């Protein structure tokens, strides 16, 4: 009998190593919470800028190209800044988790994960930049959500499975948003802000939470 339990252990080891060597499993829940909080902050600033723009518009009563270009550029820089701050923080939280587990941030698993994330995400970035460049702003928010969702879905094969579901949610939000372009900022805040925070908390609960005193993992 003892021998057979050994075989079961061996199979468990094999499964574990196959998973760990192909999937990057050290994504931290805090990364999600951080990215979400930054996105919500960014959305609030964008909302204020839009409010100000429309108030000025109403006071003047006519369209002013310079004001519009300013608004467009400010929103674009804001978006890029939010992305960089969110990504940097998310990276640092995950790095901290990797260090704690004595792992390596640059493994074949993490490379595979990043490659699969970067290619659809980069495509999306080019498309969104082209929208902004062509002054076609109504599809910026849905395109961000759609491409980000596809990137997560794709990269989800090489990390915690939960990421795939988050990807699907982002795609659905983006798809709905396509038909309500005027509400883009709200969908954007929901997808990048709210969903990241919710997912961060779920993942923290599932994978990061220190073992509780009752002993249940």
């Amino acid at each position, binding site marked *: 009998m003892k021998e057979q339990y050994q*075989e079961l252990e061996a199979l468990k080891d094999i499964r574990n190593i196959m998973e760990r060597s192909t999937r990057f499993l050290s994504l931290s829940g805090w990364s999600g919470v951080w990215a979400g909080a930054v996105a919500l902050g960014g959305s609030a600033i964008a909302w204020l800028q839009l409010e100000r723009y429309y108030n000025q518009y109403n006071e003047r009563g006519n369209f002013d190209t310079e004001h519009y270009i300013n608004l467009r550029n400010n929103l674009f820089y804001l978006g890029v800044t939010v992305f960089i701050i969110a990504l940097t923080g998310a990276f640092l939280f995950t790095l901290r988790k990797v260090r704690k587990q*004595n792992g390596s941030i640059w*493994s074949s698993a993490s490379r595979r994960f990043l490659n699969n994330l970067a290619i659809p995400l980069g495509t999306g970035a080019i498309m969104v930049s082209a929208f902004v460049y062509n002054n076609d702003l109504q599809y910026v928010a849905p395109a961000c959500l759609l491409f980000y969702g596809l990137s997560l879905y794709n990269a989800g094969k090489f990390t915690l499975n939960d990421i795939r579901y988050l990807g699907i949610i982002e795609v659905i939000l983006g798809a709905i948003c396509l038909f309500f372009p005027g509400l883009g900022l709200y969908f954007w805040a929901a997808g990048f802000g709210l969903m990241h925070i919710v997912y961060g908390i779920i993942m923290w609960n599932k994978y990061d939470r220190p073992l509780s005193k009752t002993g249940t993992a």
Partner: protein
Amino acid sequence: MRKEIEQLNKIFDSRIRIGIMSALMVNESMNFNELKALVDATDGNLATHLKTLEDNTFIKVEKGFIGRKTNTTYAITKAGEKAFRSHLDALEKIIRNLG
């Protein structure tokens, strides 16, 4: 049951060797340090096990360079893949007989 236990490959008796083979089954190639982190072995220990697997032509070794540093990568061979698969099949049969 005896028959299945005999089908288990003696070379895959060691946890570390099983670890190496599992990792190389799902990765095209891996270097020494990646394997070390994965199977949690000391340098000497890992090197010995890698040598055994290499001598049995279950894995192939490629010595390369990244800049001036040597970078040795390991990949599974056809024979290694076949041997490991039948080892897994035997394990599966034994466990099935448990229930």
